[in-house]
């Protein structure tokens, strides 16, 4: 079937490539191995997954741990992938996203000597976690409240917008905090809320995000906060195109369209992941649910050279006052 020259070239190539060094998982001085399994959207979403990845990279830099990572193709692969990593002797395994909740709990029970962490763990009322599993949860509503304050102070039309990814309670927390924050500044402000979809794919659809954002900008909205993974890359793109403003999420996204990203609600998944790895290394790992809000620096807003011209001193002062008030419990932030 094959023409002989092609076959020869192929065989030669295979033989040659045998000699090439192949990339093993990055070697460190420690023999501690960390495995990370990503959510929908995967590495490169510039948002949620990348934040988790950064936490692992930082830990690898500081402690010299060895790591690998992958993105499951189908749902069943989540559990299988976690098991493969555990079976291959990884010391700590991190599931990124609430979709891992059931799978990681099962696998954690079967591998009691391996440490597990799950970002955005979806806890059931009264549920007990195995002692080798930490569920990292964030009070996204608190950080969203702060960016809501900034949005309301920045808007000139008194119309702001929100683009959510998948229409689920987790994202409702972002929405609720944002709305409460904006109303805290301007009680009568108009807020348009729209979701990209009802499936996990809604977190990975930049074209849809752009379309939804342009629709809102066309109707007089001038600031849009997105909580939609890589779908939000489209929202930020739309802000640049429409000469309006977007608010980034999870990672600091200010750099993605300097001058058009008002700020970013940073969810410090990186810090949480870093800390979980450090705890596991130092033997201070504790299972259970860990809630991270403003007080724990688990969430916040991003201020850097890309948006310093957009955030006035008055805004900084107002938002810092609100932050202090939330931490002190003087402001109650709704989560739904």
């Amino acid at each position: 079937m094959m023409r002989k020259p092609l076959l020869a070239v192929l065989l030669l190539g295979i033989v040659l490539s045998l000699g090439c060094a192949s990339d093993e998982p990055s070697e460190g001085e420690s023999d501690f191995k960390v495995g990370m399994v990503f959510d929908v959207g995967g590495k490169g979403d510039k948002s949620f997954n990348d934040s988790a990845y950064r936490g692992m990279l930082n830990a690898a830099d500081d402690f010299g741990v060895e790591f690998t990572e992958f993105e499951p193709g189908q749902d069943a692969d989540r559990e299988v992938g976690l098991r493969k990593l555990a079976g291959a002797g990884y010391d700590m395994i991190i599931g990124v996203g609430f979709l891992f909740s059931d799978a990681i709990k099962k696998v954690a029970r079967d591998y009691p000597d391996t440490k597990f962490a799950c970002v955005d763990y979806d806890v059931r009322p009264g549920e007990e976690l195995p002692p080798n599993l930490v569920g990292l949860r964030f009070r996204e509503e608190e950080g969203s409240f702060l960016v809501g304050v900034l949005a309301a102070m920045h808007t000139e039309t008194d119309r702001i917008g929100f683009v959510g990814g998948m229409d689920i309670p987790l994202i409702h927390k972002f929405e609720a905090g944002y709305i409460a924050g904006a109303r805290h500044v301007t009680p009568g402000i108009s807020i348009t809320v729209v979701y990209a979809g009802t499936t996990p794919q809604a977190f990975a659809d930049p074209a849809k995000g752009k379309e939804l954002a342009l629709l809102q900008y066309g109707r007089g909205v001038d600031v849009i906060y997105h909580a939609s993974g890589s779908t939000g890359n489209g929202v930020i793109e739309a802000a640049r195109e429409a000469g309006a403003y977007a608010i980034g999420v999870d990672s600091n996204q200010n750099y993605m369209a300097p001058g058009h990203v008002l700020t970013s609600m940073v969810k410090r998944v990186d810090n949480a992941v870093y800390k979980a790895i450090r705890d596991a290394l130092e033997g201070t790992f504790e299972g259970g649910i860990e809630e991270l809000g403003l007080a724990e620096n688990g969430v916040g807003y991003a201020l850097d050279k890309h948006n310093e011209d957009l955030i006035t001193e008055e805004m900084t002062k107002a938002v810092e006052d609100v932050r202090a008030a939330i931490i002190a419990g003087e402001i109650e932030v709704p989560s739904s």
Partner: protein
Amino acid sequence: MSRFAKAVSVLSPVIAVAAALLVGGLVVMAIGESPLRVYSILFRGAFGSVDSLGYVVFNACPLIFTGLAVAFAFRAGLFNIGGEGQLYVGSFVCAWVGLKLGGVPAALAVPLLVLASAAGGAAWAAIPGFLKARFGVHEVINTIMLNFIAIGLTSYFVINVFKEPGQMTPQTAEIAASGQLPRLAGALQSVGIPLPAANPLNASILIALGAVWAAWFILNRTTLGYEIRAVGLNPSAAEYAGINVRRMLVVAMMISGAFAGLVATNEIMGFRYRYLDNFSAQIGFMGIAVALLGKNTPLGVLFAALLFGVLNTGALEVDVFTDVPRELILVLQAVTIILVVVANEVLTKKLREREAGAASQATEESA
């Protein structure tokens, strides 16, 4: 069929797979990895242990159902692209019934849920079947559109009506324990096969094997199957022979949909025990490839599904333990399918030429 023809029809998928591996090797080389290393990880991932073999069969199981669905409809001359929608509806109905079965003994609950899965898929497939039979609307368009409708509707119901309270994850609560299929690890261990208890291989594979037999039996041993095949080969001739073609189209689509719906026995009854929104990673569409590779015969589907099970299982291993991206495995699978089609066409053409040659020779000799 001559012995040569038989050999060709068996060998062409094998040749295609070999060619696909070669082409895949080129792709691996192009991204700077060693093909031998990647393939050895891939095959070790699939065949390296009893555990991984269990995963191969587990991953093949839903593809057997969707492959049968496509193959069966194809034999009636119907191109059922709607396996994805049918499996969602079948699975949803299965979970919905399963949630209500608390207290019902397993002897009753299991058959009931199997039936519910098949009925859900069959009902969804009946729609394009009916539209085709009654109005002559092409089933490809309708099955594709019904996929969107099924995905949207099931999402809506799971998120808004049946979601487990207080949970982020868009999934239902667990179905009744009596409706859950047993995992096979325990049984296999007792006969000396050391399948780890955590392996998700479950009794659904037995249902899948039963479905392979049933598809073969219906097609080859019943009047219904004869009529379905007759319609598939030549509807006009079938009608002339007194076969109710319209009825056959609907019946064939419904049986096809029932096979797709049975995916629920693996995904809902055997593995997850709940309906998770969007759980299928294109299992329905992969069924088309499986049927194609299996030459639209039930036994062929079984082997093709196992091959895809090997690729999927090994792919995960490659994904986890190398820098080769998952996309590459998708490329490999797509290349396999294309090469199967090409190999099939080329070999069939060769075969026809050869037989035509032999025939003309024979007529010359007899003259």
